[in-house]
């Protein structure tokens, strides 16, 4: 629990340092987001699972603000993702979809707020989180074959000094088989098509054998067959009780693929069951129209907050 304590201390510290603007709650009252009660008290202590007997949520985000060189990209993000759901993260370009995924995993410094994965900090739950980065994030000319890439999914569980065992290799083979890429196991990765590369990335995430999966645009640049194959695997993972958070850009397929939708545009526009949230008003709010006026006000306040930012006590 020591880490929870430091987390606690840190949030307290950040609360004490900055007087948080109250814009987040006022905007969210328009959405179907349900946890406004928690906002009522500014100095409220984050709930840890020792006061909460039910199993902790796979992902809980509270008042998250992320800034790139003092320009806020995400602010006042609150989320509580129920176990076993497939959440589609949808929003316009620059809405901070990838930023959200990256900051959950601690790849970006957080300006304020906290993130809990299975009730603990990300680092404590690191083996329970699988990650599919954007395909363009790596150099596909790198001298590795498909099998090597999938084996990297085992590295997190192996820890330092250990090499992948025969069992790890078998798991990696099974994952390749699952995405129908076993015949290409020995191919250098630049000799694969875009869809095949994406499936290799998915296989690597499967090899992580995690409970929560974060996927950054897994459907970009893949053909219809691969897209269908990927969604089938995602459903299978869901059936096994895993939780999936998938950044998606195609509004036409989003309601079919996901049972929950997070509409994001620098803040949470709406989050909830697809049938409740995925409607014209919310989309209008996320993608344009009257949102712009609100976000102007909110932005300037968030910028003030970010300027007082000292990232050293917020890392992780």
């Amino acid at each position: 629990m020591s880490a929870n304590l430091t987390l606690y201390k840190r949030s307290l510290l950040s609360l004490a340092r900055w007087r948080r603007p109250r814009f987040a709650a006022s905007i969210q009252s328009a959405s179907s987001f349900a946890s406004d009660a928690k906002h009522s008290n500014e100095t409220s202590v984050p709930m840890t699972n020792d006061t909460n007997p039910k199993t902790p949520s796979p992902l809980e985000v509270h008042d998250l603000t992320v800034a790139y060189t003092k320009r806020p990209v995400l602010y006042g993000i609150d989320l509580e993702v129920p176990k076993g759901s497939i959440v589609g993260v949808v929003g316009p370009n620059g809405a901070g979809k990838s930023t959200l995924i990256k900051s959950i995993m601690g790849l970006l410094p957080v300006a304020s707020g906290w993130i809990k994965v299975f009730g603990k900090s990300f680092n404590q739950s690191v083996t329970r989180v699988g990650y599919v980065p954007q395909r363009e994030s790596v150099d596909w000319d790198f001298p590795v074959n498909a099998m090597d890439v999938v084996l990297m999914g085992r590295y997190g569980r192996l820890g330092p000094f250990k090499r992948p065992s025969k069992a790890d290799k078998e798991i990696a083979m099974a994952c390749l088989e699952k995405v129908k890429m076993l015949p290409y196991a020995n191919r250098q990765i630049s000799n694969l098509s875009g869809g095949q590369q994406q499936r290799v990335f998915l296989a690597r995430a499967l090899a992580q054998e995690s409970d929560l999966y974060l996927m950054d645009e897994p459907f970009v640049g893949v053909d219809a067959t691969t897209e269908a194959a990927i969604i089938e695997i995602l459903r299978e993972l869901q059936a096994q009780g895993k939780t999936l958070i998938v950044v998606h850009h195609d509004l036409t397929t989003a309601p079919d693929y996901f049972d929950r939708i997070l509409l994001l545009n620098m803040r949470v526009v709406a989050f909830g069951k697809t049938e409740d949230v995925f409607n014209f008003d919310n989309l209008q709010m996320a993608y344009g129209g009257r949102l712009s006026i609100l976000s102007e006000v909110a932005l300037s306040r968030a910028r003030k907050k970010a300027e007082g930012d000292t990232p050293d006590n917020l890392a992780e």
Partner: protein
Amino acid sequence: MKRVASIAAALCAASVAHAAKIGDLTDTTWTSQAIEFLSLDTPIVRSAVLGTLLIGFCCSVLGSFLVVRKLALLGDTLSHAVLPGVALGFLWNASKDPWAIFIGATAAGILGVALVGWIKQTTHLKEDSAMGMVLAGFYGLGICMTTVIQNMAMGNKSGLDKFFFGQAAALSSGDIQLLGIISVITIILVLLFYKEFLAISFDVGFAQAIGMPVQLLHYALMALLTFAVVVSLQAVGVVLVSALLITPAAAAFLLTDRMHWMLVLSAAFGMLSGVLGAFISYLSHNLPTGPLIVLGATLIFILALLFGPRHGLLTKIIHRRRQRQRIALENTLKAVFHLCEKAHFKRKAFATSELSVERNSNLRAIESEIRNLEKAGMAEPMDDPSQAQLSGKARFKLTTEGWYRACEIVRNHRLWELYLTNAADYQSDHVHDDAEEIEHLLGKDLVQRLEKRLQNPIHDPHGRLIPSKDQLTV
């Protein structure tokens, strides 16, 4: 002692005065010198060989990670950034103490790399600009400091200039010891953390997401690189050390698609070029070792570029040439088939003039084509060559193998035409050119699939027979 007015003059004078070569001390013919070198008799040869081997090993193994991470310029940055540290180490006790210089240089190198990282993080300048600036800035500082040292009145200043141009023969036993230690550390760390180094090199975001201490690993790698650069400086000099980091690794990158093989090959190339450089430098009395090592590495790279089994330029040219020859051969066979078809498969032997008309080509070209067929065992002359001197009258026929191949090509052509008209809705007069190209490329699998799809057809879209192997025999 005010021999030197400016650092440039000092360097020029130094490089001429102690032209860096190992063979200085002996004066015999080159064969006996070669034997002397290869038998590793004299200590100076031993230390030069050992030194260049170790340098080649360290630099090329660690340089592989720079190459795959597209950080090649970082090698240059490091080698230039260590210079102020070298000067400081020199000042420490006013002599060329390998350890003092090593510590100073390492500190300066790591400071340089950290500065690059810091500039990249805090500004929106990209890494290459940051590296360029740090490189030049540290180098400038280094030159000023060494100039000041050269002009100071104190003990043994000789050897400082070696850091600029390098001199393998100047490697002392202390330097060799240091090299050995660095090599052992490199081997151990790379073996121990191979999967971590692989992961951060391929996908740094993923590596961090699975809980790897990415920053620590990056700086560990940078520290190792700095060590390697510092110990290699004296042998090859500031400017050339980055070539040792990059060139063997780049050659290995051309030859393999797996990271661990790249490391092994790169190490082998690095060591080979090291020894090669030392050897040639020993044989020739005036050539410096460092540049020869780099030239050796460059030669290996050129060979890999030309003859690499997969990406080699020459390999590709040869492959393309063979392909062209095969296509020419197959076109001749096809023309013979057409002749045969026009004769309703009643004649086997044809005159070269007939083929010349069929292919609309001159006799000389046709004769050479038929010679090629004969060489490949696909045709044979019908007449005694001494009798058929009249040009165009020489007759030939296809062998069984040639006939078989001819049928196959025509079959490919007509199957494809049929496929295009039936399955892809092409007009029957639009399909010939496409089939003309694809007929040479269809493999057995594809042909089988075409047959299945078209339900083993007998006639092509123009109503001609699609030859099959068992239908037509000559």
